[in-house]
């Protein structure tokens, strides 16, 4: 029971940290490459603990991200729900992949999320990029996936939660 509470608080705090990373001020040029931290953490939890983090949790986290970034409500919620769905479908295969192959799948998943958000922004005539630069965060996210995998895995193991 105590382990369960600790595990849930680890999940919540991981989302709090990524929420902060998502809004931490950065220089203008670096913002184009800001990794989708929240998506990375959602993918990690969905792969390893689908019984705790699924599409619903991803949606709620997305709503909070929308509130944090001041964007249209449901924008990141839909994006993260898509991420969670794709990760859920691929999770059994992803678990067997090496970290670098996982990273290539993460590239595609985050890319699809960004594409969905871009479409929605187009649909609602919100400010958006006009070049392919909107996909740049997918690349940085994929590059940072090994770090997220090792870091989160290390924390889970050190707390001996599974």
């Amino acid at each position, binding site marked *: 029971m105590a382990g369960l509470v600790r595990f849930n608080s680890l999940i919540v705090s991981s989302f709090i940290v990524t929420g902060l990373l998502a*809004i931490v001020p950065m220089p*203008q040029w670096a*913002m184009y490459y800001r990794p989708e931290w929240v998506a990375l953490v959602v993918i990690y939890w969905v792969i390893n603990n689908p019984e705790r983090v699924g599409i619903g949790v991803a949606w709620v986290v997305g*709503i909070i991200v929308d*509130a*944090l970034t*001041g964007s249209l409500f449901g924008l990141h919620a839909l994006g993260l729900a898509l991420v969670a769905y794709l990760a859920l479908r691929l999770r059994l295969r992803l678990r067997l992949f090496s970290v670098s192959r996982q990273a290539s799948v993460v590239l595609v998943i985050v890319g699809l999320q960004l594409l969905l958000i871009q479409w929605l922004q187009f649909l609602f005539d919100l*400010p958006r990029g*006009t070049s392919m630069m909107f996909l740049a965060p997918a690349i940085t996210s994929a590059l940072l996936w090994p770090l997220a995998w090792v870091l989160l895995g290390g924390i889970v193991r050190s707390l001996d939660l599974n």
Partner: protein
Amino acid sequence: MIADNRFGYMDHARQALGLIATPFHWLADTPVRVGNSLSELLVSRTDLLEENARLREELLLSRQRLLLAESLSVENNRLLALQNASALLEQEVLPAEIINVSPNPYSRRFLISKGSRDGVFVGQAVLEANGLIGQVVQVMPFTSWVLIITDSSHVTPVEVSRNGERALARGSQDDDTELDLEFVLPTQDIEVGDTLISSGMGLVYPKNYPVAEVISVRRSPDQSYATIKARPMARVSSTRHVMLVLDAGNPGYAAVVEEAAAAAGADEESSLAAVDSPN
């Protein structure tokens, strides 16, 4: 759900979630705040004395300028009264601090430390020490989002201070530190170095605040409009302190409405009476 949002049904949820977001923003801002207070702590006594002397000097100079400006504004009010127009009175401002910038690199917005609890409302004009900086687009209990005039979805109605030539300044698509003047006919008299001030049309911004300086003008025969670029007066990306204009019941606005109605009559100006709202 998103559709709901477009029609504003979600405003209350937004307010509530904004409340949750506030501690996040506070935390994200902490490094900057700590840095600032550290540099304030570590400043030496001589530096402080120097700064004090400099500020005193500046205060004296601005007092003197203020005296001049006061007599001018009295004279201006009298002239306006002669012309039967209601005068633009001095506006009160509410100081606020920028605590975060929009993480979306394509939208130029920042978060300020005043919200609906402090009487901030959507559409409120925001100034910086050197000029206009933007308008409030979203209000939460303790914070609110401000759209900067350089956002590509934002249009500021301006006029040239030299001759009153009117134009619309839209945030540039490709350079986030510049404004493009839209629909300026090649025959309109706008030159490099001209100061653009807010014209008060669109009823969002108060009149006569400096907005930008024209940095390039290109008129080519094959285009029906001149290509004019301007740089905002406000230090858009380096300032931390802004002011919110409290213009509720401002009599200046009545004059602006009259003027806008008069301008709408003239065929050329009709296109310029467009509203400076986001999107």
